[in-house]
Protein backbone atom coordinates (compact mmCIF):
# COMPACT_ATOMS: atom_id res chain seq x y z
CA UNK A 1 0.00 0.00 0.00
CA UNK A 2 2.94 2.29 0.77
CA UNK A 3 4.36 1.79 -2.72
CA UNK A 4 0.96 2.54 -4.29
CA UNK A 5 0.60 5.71 -2.22
CA UNK A 6 4.08 6.89 -3.27
CA UNK A 7 3.37 6.15 -6.94
CA UNK A 8 0.10 8.11 -6.68
CA UNK A 9 1.94 11.11 -5.20
CA UNK A 10 4.49 10.87 -8.02
CA UNK A 11 1.81 10.71 -10.75
CA UNK A 12 -0.12 13.52 -9.06
CA UNK A 13 2.95 15.77 -9.06
CA UNK A 14 3.80 14.98 -12.69
CA UNK A 15 0.17 15.87 -13.65
CA UNK A 16 0.64 19.28 -12.01
CA UNK A 17 3.65 20.08 -14.19
CA UNK A 18 3.20 21.92 -17.45
CA UNK A 19 6.48 22.96 -19.10
CA UNK A 20 8.18 23.89 -15.82
CA UNK A 21 5.18 25.71 -14.32
CA UNK A 22 2.13 24.68 -12.35
CA UNK A 23 -0.42 23.45 -14.91
CA UNK A 24 -3.19 25.95 -15.65
CA UNK A 25 -5.63 23.56 -17.33
CA UNK A 26 -8.31 22.61 -14.78
CA UNK A 27 -8.29 19.02 -16.01
CA UNK A 28 -4.57 18.50 -15.21
CA UNK A 29 -4.85 20.32 -11.87
CA UNK A 30 -7.90 18.30 -10.83
CA UNK A 31 -6.29 15.01 -11.89
CA UNK A 32 -3.12 15.88 -9.99
CA UNK A 33 -5.08 16.86 -6.89
CA UNK A 34 -7.21 13.73 -7.12
CA UNK A 35 -4.16 11.45 -7.22
CA UNK A 36 -2.70 13.26 -4.21
CA UNK A 37 -6.01 13.09 -2.36
CA UNK A 38 -6.15 9.31 -2.82
CA UNK A 39 -2.53 9.15 -1.61
CA UNK A 40 -3.50 11.13 1.53
CA UNK A 41 -6.32 8.66 2.20
CA UNK A 42 -3.92 5.72 1.79
CA UNK A 43 -1.34 7.29 4.11
CA UNK A 44 -4.04 8.01 6.72
CA UNK A 45 -5.24 4.42 6.38
CA UNK A 46 -1.71 3.15 7.08
CA UNK A 47 -0.56 5.57 9.76
CA UNK A 48 -3.70 7.09 11.26
CA UNK A 49 -4.99 10.60 10.54
CA UNK A 50 -2.38 12.89 12.16
CA UNK A 51 0.63 10.75 11.32
CA UNK A 52 -0.69 10.04 7.82
CA UNK A 53 -1.01 13.75 7.00
CA UNK A 54 2.58 14.46 8.03
CA UNK A 55 3.93 11.41 6.22
CA UNK A 56 2.11 12.60 3.08
CA UNK A 57 3.50 16.13 3.43
CA UNK A 58 7.02 14.73 3.76
CA UNK A 59 6.61 12.37 0.81
CA UNK A 60 4.99 15.12 -1.30
CA UNK A 61 7.87 17.53 -0.62
CA UNK A 62 10.55 14.93 -1.31
CA UNK A 63 8.97 13.60 -4.50
CA UNK A 64 8.28 17.17 -5.67
CA UNK A 65 11.97 18.05 -5.30
CA UNK A 66 13.11 14.83 -6.99
CA UNK A 67 10.68 15.26 -9.93
CA UNK A 68 11.69 18.91 -10.44
CA UNK A 69 15.41 18.05 -10.28
CA UNK A 70 15.00 15.21 -12.75
CA UNK A 71 12.95 17.13 -15.36
CA UNK A 72 15.99 18.76 -17.03
CA UNK A 73 17.80 15.42 -17.04
CA UNK A 74 14.88 13.50 -18.58
CA UNK A 75 13.69 16.30 -20.89
CA UNK A 76 16.51 18.77 -21.53
CA UNK A 77 15.27 22.21 -22.64
CA UNK A 78 16.48 23.52 -25.98
CA UNK A 79 19.30 25.96 -25.41
CA UNK A 80 18.09 29.57 -25.31
CA UNK A 81 14.62 28.63 -24.02
CA UNK A 82 13.50 30.56 -20.92
Amino acid at each position, binding site marked *: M*LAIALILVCIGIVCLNYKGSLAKQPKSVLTGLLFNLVAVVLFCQMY*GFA*RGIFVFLGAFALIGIVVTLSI*PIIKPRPSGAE
Partner: protein
Amino acid sequence: MKSITIKKLYTLHSWVGLITGILLFVIAFTGAVAVFARPELKIWANENLRTEIPVQSQKLDETIAQYAEIVGPDYLEEVHVRLPSTRVDGSARVVFEGHFETAEGGEEHKGTVFQFDPVSWELLAENDMETFFNQHTLDMSTFMAHFHADLHLGRPVGLILTGLLGLTLMVSIVTGIFIHRKILAQLFTFRITKTFSLMLNDAHKLMSVWAVLFHSVIAFTGAFLGLATVILIPAAAYVGFNGDQEKLVETFTAVKPPVIANVAMPTKLADIIDSSIKDRPDLTFSRFTVMGYGDKNALVYLSGDGSQQLGGETLVYRGATAELLRTQANFGRLEGITGTILDAMFPLHFGNFGGIFVKSIWAILGLATALLPITGLMLWIERGLNAQHPAHKKSTYENFNRLLIGCCGGLVLATVTLFPAQLILNEWMAGQNHTDSIFLTFFSVWIVAILMPFVIQQSNALKAILLPSAWMLILVMPLDAILTGSHIFNVLQTKHYVSMSVNLVLMLLGILLLVVVSKLKKQYVNREYSQAKNLVGEV
Protein backbone atom coordinates in the same frame (compact mmCIF):
# COMPACT_ATOMS: atom_id res chain seq x y z
CA MET B 1 2.69 44.31 -2.25
CA LYS B 2 4.68 47.48 -2.97
CA SER B 3 8.07 46.91 -4.59
CA ILE B 4 9.77 48.99 -1.88
CA THR B 5 8.42 46.64 0.80
CA ILE B 6 9.56 43.62 -1.19
CA LYS B 7 13.01 45.21 -1.48
CA LYS B 8 13.12 45.66 2.30
CA LEU B 9 12.04 42.05 2.82
CA TYR B 10 14.72 40.93 0.35
CA THR B 11 17.34 42.86 2.34
CA LEU B 12 16.10 41.27 5.57
CA HIS B 13 16.13 37.80 3.93
CA SER B 14 19.71 38.33 2.73
CA TRP B 15 21.03 39.63 6.03
CA VAL B 16 19.37 36.90 8.10
CA GLY B 17 20.87 34.33 5.71
CA LEU B 18 24.32 35.94 5.80
CA ILE B 19 24.44 36.13 9.59
CA THR B 20 22.90 32.77 10.44
CA GLY B 21 23.47 30.76 7.23
CA ILE B 22 26.55 28.76 8.26
CA LEU B 23 25.16 28.06 11.76
CA LEU B 24 21.86 27.01 10.20
CA PHE B 25 23.73 24.55 7.98
CA VAL B 26 25.52 23.15 11.04
CA ILE B 27 22.24 22.65 12.91
CA ALA B 28 20.34 21.24 9.93
CA PHE B 29 23.09 18.88 8.76
CA THR B 30 23.69 17.48 12.25
CA GLY B 31 19.90 17.21 12.61
CA ALA B 32 19.70 15.10 9.45
CA VAL B 33 22.29 12.74 10.98
CA ALA B 34 20.70 12.91 14.45
CA VAL B 35 17.43 11.58 13.01
CA PHE B 36 19.14 8.17 13.05
CA ALA B 37 21.04 8.70 16.33
CA ARG B 38 18.63 6.50 18.28
CA PRO B 39 18.56 3.61 17.82
CA GLU B 40 20.25 3.01 14.42
CA LEU B 41 23.61 4.76 14.99
CA LYS B 42 23.55 3.81 18.68
CA ILE B 43 23.31 0.14 17.67
CA TRP B 44 26.02 0.59 15.03
CA ALA B 45 28.38 2.28 17.53
CA ASN B 46 27.93 -0.31 20.31
CA GLU B 47 28.84 -3.89 19.52
CA ASN B 48 26.84 -5.27 22.47
CA LEU B 49 23.64 -3.75 21.02
CA ARG B 50 24.02 -5.10 17.49
CA THR B 51 22.13 -8.32 18.14
CA GLU B 52 18.47 -8.04 19.17
CA ILE B 53 17.96 -7.95 22.94
CA PRO B 54 15.04 -9.94 24.38
CA VAL B 55 12.72 -8.19 26.85
CA GLN B 56 13.40 -10.63 29.78
CA SER B 57 10.54 -9.32 31.93
CA GLN B 58 11.09 -11.94 34.67
CA LYS B 59 14.78 -11.11 34.98
CA LEU B 60 13.98 -7.39 35.08
CA ASP B 61 11.31 -7.91 37.77
CA GLU B 62 13.72 -9.91 39.94
CA THR B 63 16.57 -7.42 39.50
CA ILE B 64 14.41 -4.44 40.48
CA ALA B 65 13.04 -6.30 43.52
CA GLN B 66 16.59 -7.22 44.56
CA TYR B 67 17.94 -3.67 44.25
CA ALA B 68 14.81 -2.15 45.83
CA GLU B 69 15.77 -3.99 49.02
CA ILE B 70 19.33 -2.64 48.79
CA VAL B 71 18.34 1.04 48.37
CA GLY B 72 15.64 0.91 51.06
CA PRO B 73 12.04 2.18 51.21
CA ASP B 74 12.92 5.90 51.09
CA TYR B 75 14.03 5.56 47.46
CA LEU B 76 11.01 3.68 46.13
CA GLU B 77 8.73 6.68 45.55
CA GLU B 78 9.75 6.67 41.90
CA VAL B 79 11.49 3.89 39.99
CA HIS B 80 12.44 4.80 36.41
CA VAL B 81 13.51 2.01 34.08
CA ARG B 82 14.79 2.23 30.53
CA LEU B 83 14.16 -1.08 28.81
CA PRO B 84 17.26 -2.43 27.05
CA SER B 85 15.25 -4.16 24.32
CA THR B 86 14.82 -0.86 22.40
CA ARG B 87 18.62 -0.60 22.18
CA VAL B 88 18.71 3.19 22.63
CA ASP B 89 21.33 3.02 25.36
CA GLY B 90 24.46 0.96 25.90
CA SER B 91 23.14 -0.28 29.25
CA ALA B 92 19.86 -1.05 31.01
CA ARG B 93 19.19 1.78 33.46
CA VAL B 94 17.23 1.67 36.72
CA VAL B 95 16.81 4.83 38.82
CA PHE B 96 15.49 4.64 42.40
CA GLU B 97 14.34 8.09 43.48
CA GLY B 98 13.00 9.52 46.74
CA HIS B 99 11.70 12.97 47.73
CA PHE B 100 13.17 14.50 50.88
CA GLU B 101 12.33 17.65 52.81
CA THR B 102 15.11 20.23 53.00
CA ALA B 103 15.96 22.34 56.06
CA GLU B 104 14.34 25.34 54.32
CA GLY B 105 11.04 23.50 53.94
CA GLY B 106 11.46 22.71 50.26
CA GLU B 107 11.68 19.35 48.50
CA GLU B 108 14.81 17.62 47.28
CA HIS B 109 15.00 14.69 44.85
CA LYS B 110 17.74 12.18 45.59
CA GLY B 111 18.37 8.77 44.20
CA THR B 112 20.66 6.03 42.93
CA VAL B 113 21.23 5.03 39.33
CA PHE B 114 22.15 1.43 38.54
CA GLN B 115 23.43 0.48 35.11
CA PHE B 116 23.22 -3.15 34.03
CA ASP B 117 24.45 -5.16 31.10
CA PRO B 118 21.49 -5.18 28.68
CA VAL B 119 21.65 -8.95 28.11
CA SER B 120 23.00 -10.57 31.30
CA TRP B 121 21.66 -7.91 33.73
CA GLU B 122 25.03 -7.90 35.47
CA LEU B 123 25.67 -4.67 37.43
CA LEU B 124 28.02 -2.38 35.48
CA ALA B 125 27.94 0.85 37.49
CA GLU B 126 26.26 2.53 40.46
CA ASN B 127 26.06 6.30 40.90
CA ASP B 128 23.98 8.85 42.74
CA MET B 129 21.58 10.75 40.49
CA GLU B 130 23.51 14.01 40.55
CA THR B 131 26.79 12.37 39.54
CA PHE B 132 25.13 10.24 36.86
CA PHE B 133 23.26 13.05 35.15
CA ASN B 134 26.30 15.35 35.22
CA GLN B 135 28.70 12.83 33.73
CA HIS B 136 29.01 12.70 29.96
CA THR B 137 29.69 9.39 28.31
CA LEU B 138 29.22 9.97 24.62
CA ASP B 139 29.67 7.76 21.62
CA MET B 140 29.40 9.17 18.10
CA SER B 141 25.60 8.80 18.00
CA THR B 142 24.93 10.73 21.22
CA PHE B 143 27.68 13.19 20.29
CA MET B 144 25.80 14.06 17.08
CA ALA B 145 22.41 14.21 18.84
CA HIS B 146 23.77 16.55 21.55
CA PHE B 147 25.66 18.64 18.99
CA HIS B 148 22.40 19.17 17.10
CA ALA B 149 20.50 20.04 20.29
CA ASP B 150 22.88 22.59 21.85
CA LEU B 151 26.11 22.63 19.78
CA HIS B 152 27.82 21.24 22.92
CA LEU B 153 27.57 24.71 24.45
CA GLY B 154 25.40 23.36 27.26
CA ARG B 155 22.39 24.92 28.93
CA PRO B 156 21.13 27.57 28.63
CA VAL B 157 23.42 29.13 25.97
CA GLY B 158 23.33 26.25 23.47
CA LEU B 159 19.60 25.66 23.72
CA ILE B 160 18.79 29.35 23.39
CA LEU B 161 21.09 29.61 20.35
CA THR B 162 19.47 26.65 18.57
CA GLY B 163 16.01 27.90 19.54
CA LEU B 164 16.80 31.34 18.12
CA LEU B 165 18.09 29.73 14.92
CA GLY B 166 14.69 28.06 14.59
CA LEU B 167 13.11 31.51 14.85
CA THR B 168 15.47 33.01 12.27
CA LEU B 169 14.65 30.12 9.91
CA MET B 170 10.99 31.04 10.32
CA VAL B 171 11.83 34.67 9.47
CA SER B 172 13.70 33.50 6.35
CA ILE B 173 10.76 31.31 5.30
CA VAL B 174 8.20 34.11 5.70
CA THR B 175 10.34 36.74 3.95
CA GLY B 176 11.23 34.20 1.24
CA ILE B 177 7.55 33.53 0.51
CA PHE B 178 6.87 37.25 0.06
CA ILE B 179 9.91 38.03 -2.10
CA HIS B 180 9.56 34.99 -4.35
CA ARG B 181 6.61 36.26 -6.38
CA LYS B 182 6.62 33.56 -9.04
CA ILE B 183 6.21 30.64 -6.67
CA LEU B 184 3.71 28.73 -8.78
CA ALA B 185 5.02 29.85 -12.16
CA GLN B 186 8.48 28.47 -11.33
CA LEU B 187 7.34 25.47 -9.32
CA PHE B 188 8.97 22.95 -11.66
CA THR B 189 11.76 25.17 -12.96
CA PHE B 190 15.33 23.91 -12.71
CA ARG B 191 17.74 25.18 -15.37
CA ILE B 192 21.06 23.36 -15.31
CA THR B 193 22.24 24.15 -18.83
CA LYS B 194 22.35 27.91 -18.33
CA THR B 195 24.56 29.85 -15.90
CA PHE B 196 25.80 28.55 -12.54
CA SER B 197 24.08 31.45 -10.82
CA LEU B 198 20.73 30.55 -12.42
CA MET B 199 21.12 26.92 -11.40
CA LEU B 200 21.82 27.95 -7.79
CA ASN B 201 18.84 30.29 -7.86
CA ASP B 202 16.51 27.54 -9.12
CA ALA B 203 17.89 24.96 -6.66
CA HIS B 204 17.40 27.39 -3.75
CA LYS B 205 13.82 28.11 -4.80
CA LEU B 206 12.72 24.57 -5.58
CA MET B 207 14.09 23.18 -2.29
CA SER B 208 12.45 25.97 -0.32
CA VAL B 209 9.08 25.97 -2.13
CA TRP B 210 8.43 22.21 -2.32
CA ALA B 211 9.44 21.60 1.28
CA VAL B 212 8.12 24.88 2.72
CA LEU B 213 5.78 23.07 5.14
CA PHE B 214 8.57 20.74 6.25
CA HIS B 215 10.97 23.66 6.82
CA SER B 216 8.25 25.50 8.75
CA VAL B 217 7.51 22.49 10.96
CA ILE B 218 11.22 21.93 11.65
CA ALA B 219 11.76 25.65 12.40
CA PHE B 220 8.76 25.89 14.73
CA THR B 221 9.38 22.63 16.62
CA GLY B 222 13.12 23.38 16.77
CA ALA B 223 12.49 26.84 18.22
CA PHE B 224 10.04 25.34 20.71
CA LEU B 225 12.33 22.48 21.80
CA GLY B 226 15.29 24.85 22.12
CA LEU B 227 13.51 27.58 24.02
CA ALA B 228 10.92 25.55 25.99
CA THR B 229 13.15 24.31 28.81
CA VAL B 230 15.22 27.46 29.20
CA ILE B 231 12.69 30.23 28.58
CA LEU B 232 9.10 29.02 28.17
CA ILE B 233 8.88 26.67 31.19
CA PRO B 234 10.61 29.09 33.61
CA ALA B 235 8.38 31.92 32.32
CA ALA B 236 5.20 29.83 32.67
CA ALA B 237 6.30 28.66 36.14
CA TYR B 238 6.97 32.28 37.15
CA VAL B 239 3.50 33.33 36.03
CA GLY B 240 1.44 30.38 37.27
CA PHE B 241 3.46 28.50 39.92
CA ASN B 242 5.46 31.18 41.79
CA GLY B 243 8.57 30.08 39.92
CA ASP B 244 8.26 26.40 40.92
CA GLN B 245 9.22 24.65 37.65
CA GLU B 246 9.00 21.13 39.10
CA LYS B 247 5.42 21.71 40.19
CA LEU B 248 4.52 22.98 36.71
CA VAL B 249 6.05 19.91 35.06
CA GLU B 250 4.36 17.57 37.56
CA THR B 251 1.01 19.28 36.96
CA PHE B 252 1.07 18.96 33.20
CA THR B 253 2.88 15.68 32.56
CA ALA B 254 1.08 12.36 32.68
CA VAL B 255 3.02 10.60 35.47
CA LYS B 256 1.18 11.38 38.69
CA PRO B 257 2.10 9.92 42.12
CA PRO B 258 -0.58 7.74 43.75
CA VAL B 259 -1.85 8.08 47.33
CA ILE B 260 0.51 5.71 49.13
CA ALA B 261 -1.42 3.17 51.27
CA ASN B 262 1.69 2.09 53.24
CA VAL B 263 0.56 -1.51 52.73
CA ALA B 264 3.32 -3.66 51.21
CA MET B 265 2.30 -5.59 48.11
CA PRO B 266 4.66 -6.71 45.33
CA THR B 267 4.49 -4.73 42.09
CA LYS B 268 3.83 -7.25 39.32
CA LEU B 269 6.22 -5.82 36.74
CA ALA B 270 6.75 -9.01 34.74
CA ASP B 271 2.99 -9.55 34.32
CA ILE B 272 2.47 -5.92 33.30
CA ILE B 273 5.26 -5.98 30.69
CA ASP B 274 4.20 -9.36 29.28
CA SER B 275 0.51 -8.46 28.97
CA SER B 276 1.36 -5.06 27.42
CA ILE B 277 3.52 -6.69 24.75
CA LYS B 278 0.78 -9.25 24.06
CA ASP B 279 -2.15 -6.82 24.00
CA ARG B 280 -0.45 -3.93 22.22
CA PRO B 281 1.78 -5.35 19.47
CA ASP B 282 1.57 -1.97 17.69
CA LEU B 283 3.62 -0.33 20.44
CA THR B 284 7.36 -0.62 21.11
CA PHE B 285 7.89 -0.10 24.82
CA SER B 286 10.96 1.89 25.69
CA ARG B 287 10.65 2.84 29.37
CA PHE B 288 8.44 2.70 32.43
CA THR B 289 8.02 4.45 35.75
CA VAL B 290 6.69 2.92 38.94
CA MET B 291 5.24 5.40 41.41
CA GLY B 292 5.26 3.95 44.93
CA TYR B 293 7.08 0.69 44.16
CA GLY B 294 6.04 -2.21 46.42
CA ASP B 295 2.94 -0.41 47.75
CA LYS B 296 -0.65 -1.59 47.40
CA ASN B 297 -1.53 1.59 45.45
CA ALA B 298 1.56 1.59 43.21
CA LEU B 299 0.99 2.81 39.66
CA VAL B 300 3.03 1.71 36.65
CA TYR B 301 3.34 4.03 33.64
CA LEU B 302 4.60 2.08 30.64
CA SER B 303 5.50 4.26 27.63
CA GLY B 304 5.64 3.08 24.05
CA ASP B 305 5.91 4.47 20.54
CA GLY B 306 4.33 3.33 17.32
CA SER B 307 0.61 3.70 17.85
CA GLN B 308 -1.51 6.05 15.75
CA GLN B 309 -0.78 8.91 18.16
CA LEU B 310 2.13 11.11 17.11
CA GLY B 311 3.71 11.32 20.55
CA GLY B 312 3.32 7.68 21.56
CA GLU B 313 1.15 6.27 24.32
CA THR B 314 1.46 5.58 28.03
CA LEU B 315 -0.35 2.60 29.51
CA VAL B 316 -1.24 3.06 33.19
CA TYR B 317 -1.46 -0.08 35.35
CA ARG B 318 -2.26 -0.75 39.00
CA GLY B 319 1.05 -2.25 40.13
CA ALA B 320 -0.27 -4.72 42.71
CA THR B 321 -2.89 -6.34 40.45
CA ALA B 322 -1.43 -5.69 36.97
CA GLU B 323 -4.82 -4.26 35.98
CA LEU B 324 -4.81 -1.82 33.05
CA LEU B 325 -6.41 1.43 34.27
CA ARG B 326 -6.20 3.65 31.19
CA THR B 327 -4.02 4.71 28.25
CA GLN B 328 -2.99 8.31 27.75
CA ALA B 329 -0.69 10.57 25.81
CA ASN B 330 2.33 12.14 27.55
CA PHE B 331 0.56 15.46 27.93
CA GLY B 332 -2.83 13.74 28.10
CA ARG B 333 -3.82 15.70 31.17
CA LEU B 334 -3.89 18.99 29.27
CA GLU B 335 -7.34 19.82 28.01
CA GLY B 336 -8.22 20.45 24.36
CA ILE B 337 -5.69 20.34 21.57
CA THR B 338 -2.75 21.71 23.65
CA GLY B 339 -1.68 18.28 24.91
CA THR B 340 -1.79 16.80 21.43
CA ILE B 341 0.32 19.65 20.03
CA LEU B 342 2.91 19.37 22.83
CA ASP B 343 3.07 15.60 22.35
CA ALA B 344 3.68 16.07 18.63
CA MET B 345 6.63 18.48 18.99
CA PHE B 346 9.42 15.95 19.48
CA PRO B 347 8.31 13.30 16.94
CA LEU B 348 7.59 15.96 14.32
CA HIS B 349 11.08 17.41 14.77
CA PHE B 350 12.93 14.08 14.62
CA GLY B 351 10.56 12.16 12.33
CA ASN B 352 10.42 9.15 14.66
CA PHE B 353 6.70 8.50 14.32
CA GLY B 354 6.54 6.13 11.36
CA GLY B 355 9.55 3.85 11.36
CA ILE B 356 12.61 3.97 9.14
CA PHE B 357 10.61 5.17 6.10
CA VAL B 358 9.57 8.44 7.74
CA LYS B 359 13.02 8.85 9.29
CA SER B 360 14.59 8.57 5.83
CA ILE B 361 12.22 11.21 4.41
CA TRP B 362 12.99 13.49 7.37
CA ALA B 363 16.75 13.01 6.95
CA ILE B 364 16.71 13.78 3.20
CA LEU B 365 14.45 16.80 3.67
CA GLY B 366 16.70 17.83 6.58
CA LEU B 367 19.60 17.86 4.12
CA ALA B 368 17.45 20.08 1.87
CA THR B 369 17.01 22.43 4.85
CA ALA B 370 20.81 22.38 5.28
CA LEU B 371 21.34 23.14 1.59
CA LEU B 372 19.02 26.18 1.66
CA PRO B 373 21.42 28.55 3.43
CA ILE B 374 24.34 27.12 1.42
CA THR B 375 22.69 27.77 -1.97
CA GLY B 376 21.55 31.18 -0.72
CA LEU B 377 25.06 32.15 0.39
CA MET B 378 26.63 30.77 -2.80
CA LEU B 379 24.17 32.82 -4.81
CA TRP B 380 25.14 35.95 -2.87
CA ILE B 381 28.85 35.25 -3.43
CA GLU B 382 28.35 34.42 -7.14
CA ARG B 383 26.32 37.59 -7.76
CA GLY B 384 28.85 39.67 -5.83
CA LEU B 385 31.79 38.30 -7.79
CA ASN B 386 30.05 38.74 -11.16
CA ALA B 387 28.51 42.17 -10.49
CA GLN B 388 29.95 45.21 -12.27
CA HIS B 389 29.46 47.33 -9.16
CA PRO B 390 29.47 44.90 -6.21
CA ALA B 391 28.34 46.08 -2.78
CA HIS B 392 31.55 44.78 -1.17
CA LYS B 393 35.17 44.20 -2.14
CA LYS B 394 35.97 41.12 -4.24
CA SER B 395 38.18 39.80 -1.42
CA THR B 396 35.17 39.89 0.95
CA TYR B 397 33.22 37.51 -1.30
CA GLU B 398 36.25 35.28 -1.79
CA ASN B 399 36.96 35.07 1.95
CA PHE B 400 33.30 34.32 2.61
CA ASN B 401 33.49 31.55 0.03
CA ARG B 402 36.56 30.12 1.80
CA LEU B 403 34.74 30.23 5.13
CA LEU B 404 31.72 28.53 3.57
CA ILE B 405 33.83 25.71 2.08
CA GLY B 406 35.78 25.22 5.31
CA CYS B 407 32.87 25.36 7.76
CA CYS B 408 30.29 23.41 5.78
CA GLY B 409 32.53 20.95 3.95
CA GLY B 410 34.58 20.58 7.11
CA LEU B 411 31.50 19.67 9.13
CA VAL B 412 30.70 16.89 6.65
CA LEU B 413 34.29 15.63 6.85
CA ALA B 414 34.35 15.79 10.67
CA THR B 415 31.02 13.93 10.91
CA VAL B 416 32.18 11.23 8.50
CA THR B 417 35.48 10.86 10.41
CA LEU B 418 33.53 9.89 13.51
CA PHE B 419 32.49 6.58 11.89
CA PRO B 420 35.96 5.03 11.44
CA ALA B 421 37.07 6.78 14.65
CA GLN B 422 34.30 5.05 16.62
CA LEU B 423 35.26 1.63 15.24
CA ILE B 424 38.93 2.20 16.07
CA LEU B 425 38.11 3.50 19.57
CA ASN B 426 35.88 0.47 20.22
CA GLU B 427 38.83 -1.76 19.34
CA TRP B 428 41.72 0.10 20.98
CA MET B 429 39.96 1.64 23.97
CA ALA B 430 37.43 -1.09 24.68
CA GLY B 431 35.43 -0.54 27.87
CA GLN B 432 36.80 3.01 28.32
CA ASN B 433 35.08 6.38 28.05
CA HIS B 434 35.44 7.60 24.45
CA THR B 435 33.99 11.08 25.01
CA ASP B 436 37.27 13.05 24.96
CA SER B 437 38.59 11.16 21.95
CA ILE B 438 35.35 11.75 20.02
CA PHE B 439 35.48 15.48 20.83
CA LEU B 440 39.17 15.69 19.88
CA THR B 441 38.69 13.85 16.58
CA PHE B 442 35.65 15.85 15.52
CA PHE B 443 36.84 19.34 16.38
CA SER B 444 40.45 18.86 15.23
CA VAL B 445 39.29 17.63 11.81
CA TRP B 446 36.77 20.48 11.56
CA ILE B 447 39.31 23.17 12.52
CA VAL B 448 41.87 21.87 10.01
CA ALA B 449 39.16 21.84 7.31
CA ILE B 450 38.10 25.42 8.17
CA LEU B 451 41.69 26.66 7.81
CA MET B 452 42.45 24.69 4.64
CA PRO B 453 40.72 26.98 2.05
CA PHE B 454 42.64 29.97 3.49
CA VAL B 455 45.95 28.17 2.94
CA ILE B 456 45.51 26.31 -0.36
CA GLN B 457 43.46 27.03 -3.51
CA GLN B 458 39.68 26.87 -2.92
CA SER B 459 39.01 24.16 -5.52
CA ASN B 460 41.83 22.01 -4.11
CA ALA B 461 40.55 22.55 -0.57
CA LEU B 462 37.05 21.47 -1.61
CA LYS B 463 38.52 18.37 -3.23
CA ALA B 464 40.69 17.70 -0.17
CA ILE B 465 37.55 17.82 2.01
CA LEU B 466 35.09 15.90 -0.16
CA LEU B 467 37.35 13.10 -1.46
CA PRO B 468 38.46 11.82 1.98
CA SER B 469 34.81 12.09 3.12
CA ALA B 470 33.70 9.86 0.24
CA TRP B 471 36.46 7.31 0.74
CA MET B 472 35.94 7.15 4.50
CA LEU B 473 32.23 6.48 3.95
CA ILE B 474 33.09 3.67 1.54
CA LEU B 475 35.74 2.19 3.82
CA VAL B 476 33.54 2.00 6.93
CA MET B 477 32.13 -1.39 5.91
CA PRO B 478 35.50 -3.11 5.29
CA LEU B 479 36.92 -1.53 8.45
CA ASP B 480 33.95 -2.83 10.45
CA ALA B 481 34.52 -6.29 8.99
CA ILE B 482 38.21 -6.23 9.93
CA LEU B 483 37.77 -4.86 13.45
CA THR B 484 34.55 -6.55 14.59
CA GLY B 485 34.28 -9.53 12.25
CA SER B 486 30.76 -8.42 11.29
CA HIS B 487 30.34 -8.38 7.52
CA ILE B 488 27.72 -8.83 4.85
CA PHE B 489 28.53 -12.51 4.28
CA ASN B 490 27.88 -13.55 7.89
CA VAL B 491 24.96 -11.20 8.56
CA LEU B 492 22.51 -14.11 8.71
CA GLN B 493 24.54 -15.70 11.49
CA THR B 494 25.38 -12.54 13.45
CA LYS B 495 21.91 -10.98 12.86
CA HIS B 496 23.55 -7.54 12.83
CA TYR B 497 20.90 -6.28 10.41
CA VAL B 498 20.77 -2.68 11.64
CA SER B 499 24.52 -2.12 11.73
CA MET B 500 24.95 -3.79 8.34
CA SER B 501 22.23 -1.54 6.87
CA VAL B 502 24.08 1.49 8.27
CA ASN B 503 27.32 0.24 6.65
CA LEU B 504 25.56 -0.26 3.30
CA VAL B 505 23.94 3.18 3.39
CA LEU B 506 27.29 4.78 4.24
CA MET B 507 28.92 2.97 1.32
CA LEU B 508 26.19 4.14 -1.08
CA LEU B 509 26.55 7.71 0.19
CA GLY B 510 30.31 7.47 -0.33
CA ILE B 511 29.88 6.33 -3.94
CA LEU B 512 27.32 9.10 -4.51
CA LEU B 513 29.75 11.66 -3.09
CA LEU B 514 32.51 10.39 -5.40
CA VAL B 515 30.17 10.90 -8.39
CA VAL B 516 29.34 14.43 -7.16
CA VAL B 517 33.05 15.25 -6.75
CA SER B 518 33.82 14.08 -10.31
CA LYS B 519 30.88 16.16 -11.67
CA LEU B 520 32.06 19.20 -9.70
CA LYS B 521 35.54 18.77 -11.14
CA LYS B 522 34.15 18.67 -14.70
CA GLN B 523 31.95 21.73 -14.03
CA TYR B 524 34.90 23.62 -12.57
CA VAL B 525 37.03 22.84 -15.64
CA ASN B 526 34.16 23.92 -17.95
CA ARG B 527 33.68 27.17 -16.01
CA GLU B 528 37.39 27.98 -16.16
CA TYR B 529 37.39 27.18 -19.88
CA SER B 530 34.40 29.43 -20.62
CA GLN B 531 35.87 32.23 -18.46
CA ALA B 532 39.15 31.97 -20.38
CA LYS B 533 37.25 31.96 -23.69
CA ASN B 534 35.33 35.10 -22.69
CA LEU B 535 38.56 36.78 -21.71
CA VAL B 536 40.15 35.94 -25.06
CA GLY B 537 37.00 37.20 -26.84
CA GLU B 538 37.15 40.53 -24.95
CA VAL B 539 40.83 40.95 -25.82
